[in-house]
């Protein structure tokens, strides 16, 4: 009886999780602008390699800004990336923060004119236990 109850709860919770995830993905598609496609822009001849939907949503309504796309090793779960967001939230020069788990990127939006210090970014990410290995900056 208890095993059956456990299986039922397992099935219900997994189904619920899948539904929530599908709703979230659907919401992403609804908000995805097909104009501009910022994610397709090249920085120093290289692609940004970001989740296109997430990135375009991130830059929506941003102007006169520069986007730092930071490559991070070890960022394999949402729970372990929380500290990264918290660390950058304390930096007043950052306008917007996001984490792209699927591509292992941290997205940081700065105002134009702010000098982006990669060493400082590396320190903040290392304080969370991960390693920043590279960065591309895109001006919009």
């Amino acid at each position, binding site marked *: 009886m*208890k*095993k059956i109850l*456990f299986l039922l*709860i*397992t099935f219900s*919770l*997994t189904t*619920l*999780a*899948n539904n*929530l*995830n599908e709703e*979230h993905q659907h919401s992403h598609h609804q908000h995805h602008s097909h104009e501009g496609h910022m994610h397709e822009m090249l920085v120093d001849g290289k692609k940004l390699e970001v*989740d296109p939907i*997430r990135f375009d949503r991130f830059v929506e309504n941003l102007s006169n800004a520069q986007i730092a796309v930071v*490559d991070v*090793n*070890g960022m*394999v*779960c*949402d*729970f*372990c*990336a*929380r*500290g*990264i967001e*918290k*660390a950058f939230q304390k930096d007043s020069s950052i306008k917007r923060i*996001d*984490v*792209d*788990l*699927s591509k*292992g990127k941290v997205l940081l939006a700065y105002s134009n004119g702010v000098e982006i210090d990669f060493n400082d970014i590396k320190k903040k990410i*290392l*304080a*969370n*236990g*991960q*390693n920043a290995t590279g960065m591309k900056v895109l001006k919009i």
Partner: protein
Amino acid sequence: MGIKILFLFFVILSNNIEARPISYSGGSTLMGFSDNMMDSIYYHYSPTYKYSIGIESVQNKYFNENYSYIRFTYLLNRKNTQTSQRNLYFQSGLSSKGLDNYFYGVHGDWETRRWFLGFGLKEVESAYRNYSDKYYQVGVAPYLGEYGDLHTWILIKTKVNSLTNKTSTYPVLKFFKGNFLIELGYNNKTEWDTHLMYRF
């Protein structure tokens, strides 16, 4: 005697089911554990991502006894890659019941966004009886959620305890969203156990 052994089995289970024993630099974590034998609340603070210090308050329902552990966990080794993270931790605790009541051990994990492998080895020294405990865990994420989504893991855990000398294998479900995490484990010997975590 048998019930005491079973109780110790529960205590071990509560210590091993925890996840993420160290937070980010300056981060705090509050955990709660409950089953039919005991309730436990564990708070730890991480001055850096390499170690955490904390206190665990244990309410023993069976013996109607309260005691605490001062706990210290240290990250011995971490390997970050683009798609995975591997960790090896040293863990220890000193009981309020006296200097001859403590535990120490290592536990480790390797995970990608899809797969999880973990193990733990622990030695418990107590006035009652010394014993050791081992566990192995494998898990899979049925879907890959994005940052901010509800994340789900389905895990199978195997434990070997030197007191009972029995191997116990049971399923564990883990859910987390934002700073909240919940784990539910079921075993026909231990019945339900629940583990809650909030990180701040």
